[in-house]
């Protein structure tokens, strides 16, 4: 069975034309070479590819666009996202380099850093990764918010942060299908249920519709938590969640790319 990143790569290559595939191979080779450039002055070669992925890595197999210019509707980001995640994995930047790539990244580059978080080897420090996720959750760009709520956040955000992230999704229209580990983390969370009920009341009082996703989250929060360790970071559970326990720490290779 292929690892998630191997299947991501295979899927990507199938969607690329010959030129883009050749670009991807070169870029990945240079990314794997990244350690040789550590500490050297100037931009490591692979970071140029990371910046330029959008224009080199174009999806050719997606549904045809009706436009005479450019690429098919909505296809560029997906292929470029995948390419950037593979590049990050191949280059294995340390926490500091990752922070720099995020801080000076375009929205697409920032999103790729967030999406890659659970797949990096070595893993960035929890504090370093958390700073990036927190930055993205403060943003108003819904694509950044969605990208920030992957498996890394399901495991590492504390209860308060995670609840506020969920509410922010409902406020900004990010579908809760973007939130990794929703059912597990929400289960038995009485405080989350209260926040959702309050929000529903506020919407109703203003004669505005309650987002359909709110009911989904509320159902999950009212469901009792399954036996076993509490989801979320160790030693950060609230009293309502019972004794803190070691989070089920999935290794990078166990993450799946859900289709």
């Amino acid at each position, binding site marked *: 069975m292929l690892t998630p990143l191997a299947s991501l790569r295979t899927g990507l290559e199938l969607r690329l034309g010959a030129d883009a595939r050749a670009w991807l191979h070169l870029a990945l080779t240079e990314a794997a070479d990244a350690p040789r450039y550590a500490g050297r002055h100037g931009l490591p070669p692979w970071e140029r590819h990371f910046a*330029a992925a959008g224009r080199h890595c174009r999806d050719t197999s997606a549904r045809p666009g009706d436009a005479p210019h450019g690429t098919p509707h909505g296809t560029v980001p997906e292929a470029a996202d995948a390419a950037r995640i593979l590049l990050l994995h191949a280059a294995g930047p340390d926490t500091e380099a990752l922070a720099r790539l995020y801080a000076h990244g375009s929205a697409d580059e920032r999103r790729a850093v967030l999406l890659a978080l*659970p797949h990096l080897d070595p893993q960035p420090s929890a504090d370093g990764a958390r700073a990036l996720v927190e930055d993205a959750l403060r943003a108003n760009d819904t694509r950044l918010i*969605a990208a920030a709520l992957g498996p890394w956040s399901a495991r590492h955000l504390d209860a308060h942060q995670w609840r506020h992230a969920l509410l922010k999704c409902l406020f900004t229209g990010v579908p809760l299908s973007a939130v990794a580990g929703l059912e597990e983390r929400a289960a038995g969370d009485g405080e989350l249920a209260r926040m959702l009920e309050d929000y529903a009341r506020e919407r109703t009082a203003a004669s505005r519709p309650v987002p359909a996703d709110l009911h989904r989250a509320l159902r999950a929060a009212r469901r009792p938590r399954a036996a076993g360790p509490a989801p979320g970071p160790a030693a950060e559970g609230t009293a309502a969640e019972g004794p803190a326990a070691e989070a089920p720490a999935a290794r990078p290779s166990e993450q799946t790319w859900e289709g």
Partner: protein
Amino acid sequence: MRIFDPHIHMTSRTTDDYAAMYAAGVRALVEPSFWLGQPRTSPATFLDYFDALLGWEPYRAAQYGIAHHCTLALNPKEANDPRCRPVLDELPRYLLKDRVVAVGEIGYDSMTPAEDSALAAQLQLAREHELPALVHTPHRDKVAGLARTLDVLRESGLPPERCLLDHLNETTVGPAADSGCWLGFSIYPDTKMDPDRMIRILRVHGTERVLVNSAADWGHSDPLKTRHVGEAMLAAGFTEDDVDQVLWRNPVAFYGRSGRLELEVTAPAEQLFEGNSILRGGA
């Protein structure tokens, strides 16, 4: 009427402007980095500005169905402040990015030695990054400013077809056209050009290599001026094809030389709901 505004500072505009521009036919634009009215005092605030031109502003534009691109540079006015000059060292990294379709706005403001060296250095960056250059021509002492700009351009070795001379008028269009560069006209409510003067220039010089922009920013300006020129052209007997050449095909051809134009727009909400497997990231 499909419209590409090749020079507009959307950072200073509201979402009402985006909606009105879309209704008027604007489907793509280029936002050149320029000065913000209030002088900046460190490179870090430039980088935040560049990040916004590569992050938040394209996101806003996409919500209104408009494809956003940018040009990056140290502008001529702030090139005179030694505290801002280190921006030049940061530019190479930023010029690599997707959706950066030119180096700009560069050029002259007061024609100082500091402006000389910033212009020459950034034309060199355009060459190295295989990017076009958006060159602002000065508002004061315009004719002499254009002559000096053309000298520096020739010395730089950047081919004229990769250069857009902007804010031209009746007195500068002749030498600018002879240079082989693309010709940009900013249509303002009071100053610079108005639609009727633009029609007279188009009658004399034709539609080839001509771009029209609103240059709308934080000052008295109007983001629908491109549309007004299109309407004035039709009223003056130009064909729909002429209008399309000036308002769409010419800017696409010029900025297309970067290889980085992405004219298709997907609204952010649509992208989130399309079931992008990568976004969900598993688990």
